[in-house]
């Protein structure tokens, strides 16, 4: 059984990627356990009287030589806001590693990764870790406007990047599922998605229609993050499962969508 930890990590970087997304890099003084795409950490939001529980964030990147872990935090409400105000040198209490990873693609798989909103982080992490030929990886990122997109140029080495915006200011106009890559879904062996529920549901529908393997990473409200509170459930064909321990990654065939 994989040991889980509660640790104070030191913030070594906190940079704004755009007006609402921040990259926070955390460093451990000891060696950091292996964390894979899809897994997440539960972060304590200190020094505020409004927040009681931790907040879960997907891991965006790991560096085992530096013993660092990176998160992309999108400001949604009070906790994420407060978190983005943390300063270099301050400590952050983190529970990790939590949850299950995506099913890795086979070496010759062609994969499609679709990220929206705060779901971008695990998609980029998976693209990097998948170990596939660049041309076999398609990344599609959706946002409201070009300003809501973050700069992901360096991920071009891992795959082909496409964008959508609702106002057409970057990439194709409309929701991600309206993007042309969805015209030929069958060319992919595996589809992965993380983002708003509505987005993932429409992707799941398309994947299902095309009969393509599809995993999504859900973002439920969590109290504990490690399986004791049973608050984070998702109804599945196997009954109500905890997103924090049986997910956050689910095969769409198991979901009751």
């Amino acid at each position, binding site marked *: 059984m994989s040991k889980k930890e509660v640790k104070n990590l030191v913030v070594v970087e906190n940079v704004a990627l755009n007006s609402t997304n921040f990259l926070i890099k955390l460093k451990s003084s000891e060696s950091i356990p292996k964390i894979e795409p899809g897994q997440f950490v539960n972060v304590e939001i200190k020094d505020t009287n409004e927040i*009681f529980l931790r907040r879960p964030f997907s891991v965006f990147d790991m560096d085992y030589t530096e013993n660092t872990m990176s998160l992309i935090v999108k400001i949604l409400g009070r906790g994420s806001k407060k978190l983005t105000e943390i300063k270099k040198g301050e400590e952050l209490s983190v529970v990790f590693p939590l949850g299950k990873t995506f099913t890795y693609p086979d070496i010759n798989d062609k994969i499609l990764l679709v990220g929206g909103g705060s779901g971008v982080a695990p998609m980029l992490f998976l693209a990097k870790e998948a170990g596939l030929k660049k041309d076999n990886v398609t990344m599609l990122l959706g946002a409201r406007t070009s300003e809501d997109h973050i700069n992901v140029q360096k991920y071009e080495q891992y795959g082909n990047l496409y964008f959508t915006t609702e106002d057409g200011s970057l990439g194709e106009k409309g929701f991600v599922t309206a993007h042309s890559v969805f015209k030929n879904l069958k060319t992919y062996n595996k589809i992965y998605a993380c983002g708003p529920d509505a987005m993932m549901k429409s992707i799941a529908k398309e994947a299902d229609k095309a009969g393509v393997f599809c995993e999504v990473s859900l973002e439920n409200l969590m109290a504990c993050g490690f399986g004791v509170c049973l*608050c984070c459930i998702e109804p599945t064909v196997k009954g109500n499962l905890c997103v924090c321990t049986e997910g956050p990654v689910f095969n769409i065939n198991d979901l009751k969508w």
Partner: protein
Amino acid sequence: MVDLAVKINNLEFKNPVLTASGTSGNAEELMDFYDVSKLGGILLKGVTLRNRDGNAYPRMAETASGMLNAVGLQNKGIDYFIANIYPRIKDYKTHLIANVNGSTVEEYIELTEKVDELENISAIELNISCPNVKEGGMSFGISCPSAEAVTREVRRVCNKPLIVKLSPNVTDITEIAKAVEGQGADSVSLVNTFLGMAIDAEKKIPLLSTITGGLSGPAIKPLALRMVWQVYNAVKIPVIGMGGIMNATDAIEFMLAGASAVQVGTAIFKDPFIPVKIIDGIKDYLERHNLESATDLVGSLQL
């Protein structure tokens, strides 16, 4: 050397810190973090006779210094527990206590009979105070006659120490405590969660699928502490206290008010190591105050 051990109903606990039902799973989840043999005991996740899916999502809402939950006793039923979970956890070196839940007195009896057979379950906590189920649950715990009836019937079939878990959603908790004491409860634990509600003002909808849910966490500590003190002064059987305990100071306050042991619940969600830190903190306190034993704390509030 201070002595952390406490004795409740002939059970010796290595220290007075237990984890509360529904907040520490079936002990296995805590094993991911540390060896649970450090703990005085573990109240297992509430179990029912048959499989229960629990309530619909969302089941949780954060509130000021607390949270509401509406889990609704999701579990796979006692037979699944006996066949699949019990064998995996039964050799943990701590007291495992079952938290039993019924919709009818008959269900409570049948369930207790099954749990009573399990050798390595040290005691039974009779939950007559769950606010998140439509039938049974809290309805048993908020009136003396029904609390008496279920305690009496379960007592008949229960050969293990019987702890009755009380609901705080009552006018006078001492009445209920005395009622269950009168029917043979070996001890009482309190409090379960307070019935509360949260609303999303922008969407104009309740934040829980069940509209209301149970409030836990530091917000309820002053109320829980008052009830433990009242019950301690009203009954002769041991009192196990809980409600918003986040650190050793909180735990000590409950013991000063009369608790022979404490349960730590919601705090675990913030940090699963809190129960362990509390054990260390109580030890420190005893040393600083020149007390020999954790039992010296019980009810030692000076008025």
